[in-house]
């Protein structure tokens, strides 16, 4: 069923028409979220319609939904494929067919940036699965020699630090934290979700030349994509190299090869929605992930004191960062 809306904002998200309406808020969290996507016509049906309402109306009772997951301070519930997110000052319903996201928020107490960067992203990740776009908590870039690098790991593992260091060494970014995996022309393809980079204070301090625009609710600095070295790319085919950064107490950074099974297992942590009860398309998503990693060499990148003290410099000292030797 297509959802027709009017007088709303609309963008093209990798071929999907996403439209939203925000009512009763001083700023527009959805506009912040979709700032990196091209606008599309606001008339006609939407593939995904989002409403964010700060009015008094509430969502139907969800007491018969079963708990599905926790993500930070967001609690996910599920019933018959419909998901409900319970977050501070917000409650969000995601339709089972992925065509509607309905959010009700308490404007006076809402952290709009946190709502946009966390709650809405989770809602979007759930909805877009129904459209064949699978969220990945990962970064990716293309090196100067054309080699494609995927950087995967939990929050705080060092993805942004590694990505920024490689950008400083001449790579072009796809993203540092949020990507989507989809099949395009029969092949696994990583799609950008253009958002500012978010850097922990220590990481931001290691790249003093990068202009940070603001700090988010977690104290992380935001860097706009157009402020990064290297022009951003919109999509990337399967990687040549997959890096799993790990912060260590070692003095020197080293890349430790890992086998395909261990790489796939670690990669599962970056697509955590696949294990959530009630999620659909799990087999399809796992098959895509397998295809994505099929020809990549995988490494744990043990980040030593040299990397953390001077990430950009450490990247320069690694010959493969500049494509000078095969990795």
């Amino acid at each position, binding site marked *: 069923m297509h959802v027709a809306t009017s007088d709303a904002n609309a963008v093209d998200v990798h071929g999907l028409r996403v439209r939203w309406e925000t009512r009763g808020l001083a700023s527009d969290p959805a506009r912040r979220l979709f700032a990196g996507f091209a606008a599309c016509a606001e008339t006609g049906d939407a593939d995904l319609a989002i409403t964010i309402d700060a009015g008094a109306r509430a969502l139907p009772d969800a007491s018969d939904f079963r708990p599905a997951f926790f993500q930070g301070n967001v609690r996910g519930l599920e019933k018959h494929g419909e998901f409900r997110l319970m977050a501070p000052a917000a409650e969000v319903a995601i339709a089972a067919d992925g065509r509607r996201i309905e959010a009700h928020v308490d404007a006076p107490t809402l952290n709009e940036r946190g709502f946009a960067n966390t709650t809405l992203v989770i809602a979007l990740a759930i909805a877009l699965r129904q459209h064949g776009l699978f969220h990945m908590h990962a970064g990716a870039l293309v090196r100067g020699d054309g080699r494609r690098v995927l950087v995967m790991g939990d929050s705080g593992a060092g993805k942004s630090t590694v990505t920024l260091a490689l950008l400083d060494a001449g790579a072009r970014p796809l993203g540092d934290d949020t990507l989507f995996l989809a099949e395009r022309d029969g092949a696994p393809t990583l799609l950008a979700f253009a958002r500012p980079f978010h850097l922990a204070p220590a990481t931001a301090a290691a790249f003093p030349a990068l202009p940070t625009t603001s700090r988010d609710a977690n104290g992380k600095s935001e860097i706009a994509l157009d402020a990064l070295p290297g022009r951003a790319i919109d999509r990337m085919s399967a990687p040549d190299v997959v890096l799993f950064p790990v912060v260590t107490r070692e003095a020197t950074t080293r890349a430790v090869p890992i086998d*395909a*099974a261990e790489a796939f297992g670690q990669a599962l942590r970056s697509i955590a929605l696949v294990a959530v009860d009630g999620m659909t398309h799990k*087999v399809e998503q*796992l098959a895509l992930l397998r295809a994505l990693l099929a020809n990549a060499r995988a490494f744990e990148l043990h980040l030593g004191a040299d990397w953390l003290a001077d990430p950009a410099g450490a990247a320069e000292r690694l010959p493969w960062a500049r494509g000078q030797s095969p990795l």
Partner: protein
Amino acid sequence: MVASNTTYRAGADVILTELGDGTGVLLHLGTKFYYTLNATGIAAWKALGGGASHEAIASQIATKFQIDAETAARDIEPVLNEMLTEGLIARAV
């Protein structure tokens, strides 16, 4: 512990992803844990089919890797025990 004359089946909540190098990963959707499998583990998982005994699985392993049945049975027992402990397989009722 695995027992003779007992049929085992793969857990309904477990998904196998087989990789190009003959290894693979099991994802237990109930516990959210993943398990890496070498070629023997993959063969054992596939031998489970819709339900198989320790002896039947060992027989298939023996044929696949061209080893004697007794060695196969001995080698596969700890694998099946671990799968049983982790809830990846269950005794068929």
